């Protein structure tokens, strides 16, 4: 694709605008992400990481500034278009898995397709099963989320985020409540999809160890970008880890 996958220009976000308790969270963010990039978003608590992720994910609109996703200016789009754009271009992986508890693993993976394309076909189902097998859950396809471990739930969440093959996956501390071993596995899984399918990942993480294994690290401090570095050496190191 020509041009960046997404482009933020002077994005500001405040809550409670016009009231006495106005909280400014983002103070003018300029950020551009290319297709296939594997980026870590780091920063202390309260620096606005999750808010930035929500803005990029079109879950909430910025207070001011311009946000272009896949070359389309999103500020002018009506609600319906926003929903369609989100469904077709962004997959989400949340910190607390956020699977639908009433639906089995495979049904969770099928859900984005059901929403975007209508009734599930046998082909859809086979694809979803293959995707679950790909994340190592071939034998857990029909389990409800509560019967799965934290790591397994997060694998389902990744499979779900990838089910419509979006160009971008947003992950909000995907390994936040997992033990080190599981966290490594999940991270490696995302890295694999990034390399195989060229899916861009933007991962919010507190874990410097994991952040160092990304292609690019964007640091957010008090609602401003305090650092943005790309390191081929880091990426190469991560690749060699993967290649094991």
């Amino acid at each position, binding site marked *: 694709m020509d041009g960046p996958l997404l482009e933020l220009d002077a994005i500001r976000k405040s809550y409670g605008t016009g009231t006495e308790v106005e909280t400014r969270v983002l103070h003018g963010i300029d950020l551009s992400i290319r297709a296939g990039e594997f980026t870590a978003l780091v920063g202390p608590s309260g620096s606005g990481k999750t808010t930035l992720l929500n803005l990029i994910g079109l*879950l*909430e609109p910025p207070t001011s500034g311009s946000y272009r996703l896949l070359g389309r200016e999103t500020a002018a789009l009506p609600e319906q278009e926003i*929903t*369609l754009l989100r469904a077709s271009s962004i997959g989400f992986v949340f910190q607390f898995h*956020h699977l639908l*508890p009433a639906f089995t693993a495979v049904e969770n993976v099928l859900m984005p397709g*059901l*929403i975007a394309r209508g009734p599930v076909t046998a082909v859809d189902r086979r694809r979803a099963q293959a995707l679950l097998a790909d994340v190592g859950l071939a034998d857990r396809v029909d389990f409800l989320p509560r019967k799965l471990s934290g790591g397994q739930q997060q694998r389902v969440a990744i499979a779900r985020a990838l089910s419509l093959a979006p160009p971008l996956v947003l992950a909000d501390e995907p390994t936040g409540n997992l033990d080190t071993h599981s966290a490594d596995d999940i991270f490696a899984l995302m890295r694999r999809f990034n390399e195989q399918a060229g899916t861009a990942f933007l991962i919010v993480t507190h874990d410097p160890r994991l952040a160092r294994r990304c292609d690019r690290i964007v640091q957010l401090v008090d609602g401003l970008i305090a650092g943005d570095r790309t390191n081929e050496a880091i990426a190469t190191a991560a690749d060699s880890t993967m290649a094991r």
Partner: protein
Amino acid sequence: MPFEWVVALRFLREGRFQTALIVVGASVGVAVVIFITTLVTGLQANTIKRVLGAQAHIVVTPRQEVSRPQLAPAAGETLLPRIEARAQRLRSIDQWQALAAELERTPGIGAVSPIVSGAGFALRGDASKAVNLIGVDPARHDRIIHLTDKMIAGRFAVQAGDVVIGRDLAADLGAAVGDRIRLQTAQQGAAVSDAYTVAGLFDLGSRAANRTSVFVGFRTAQSLLDLPGGASEIDVTVDRLFGAEALAQDLAARTGQSFDSWMKTFDQLVAAIHAQDITTALIRLFVILIVALGIASVLVVWVVQKRREIGILRAMGASRGKIQRVFLLQGAIVAIAGSTIGSLLSSLMLFVFLKVARNADGSQIFDLDLSPTLYVTAALVAVAVGLLAAAVPARSAARLDPAQAIRM
């Protein structure tokens, strides 16, 4: 299955207890509405059938004779007239044949039967009973009160020389089918009397009617009552029972004769039926209201409990409209389930009620008439109420901010 169905059904299955709660609520509501409606309709129909079984819906009689002052006051004088009401003699309806023909052509009128009726005595041996002589054309009159169905002995035949009397009069006179009785009337002071053969006995369901009604041929009554070629009354049935009074007034204004509808004759009954209708409507309204509030309150709680899942669905690309439809669908599904169970329940309640509550003689209070229209209407109302009750929670679900919902 489309998204809305998949999610609505799964949510309903997941919240089994809440689902059961509102389905039971809706079932009981539907059952009570159908039960009460059928019960009241059945009782009313039965009452009306009993009251009108031996009764024309509209009775046409000649206009009452009134006295008019003959003296006109001279100029400067004031006249204080005292006008005495006239005694009403038995008269024929003016141009009754033309009127009967016109009535038969009038839309909304079922059967028309001209009759000659007046006071007389039935005599046998030492017994003498005051009766109401009714001269009818049997074929025409049968369409008004179905006398042939009410015969308990002999047949309804009123050719010349035949008479048909009630069970109680027969007992009073000690007469049976085939016996002869005398009928006597008074005409201008002179008694007219003749002997007739009892052709049949009837039971109109009322002791008074069985004791006083005496049916004879139309011409026999004309000669007994000194109304040659006349008819003192025209009995009419109407298609719409509760339209009788309006029709009667309309016809009275058009023809100048006196039209009395059953609604006026039994005004207390009509008032009672109306009061009952209003009460039933109120009960139904409140039941529907309570069911609607029940469904709405459970769904409101549901939406709050499901905030996070709604947020996830929205993040995955479900539009506000889709989320709204999920909850509307839940309302509709529980309403359909409720009306199905409620319909069965109400039928059961009605059967049990008719088994338990019986007339003094042990017979059924009324014939159960399960109307499919009522069931379909109740189901439609239930679905409409379910949708309405779900509308508010569905709106609030659709309006949830996905970013906020997920953070919870």
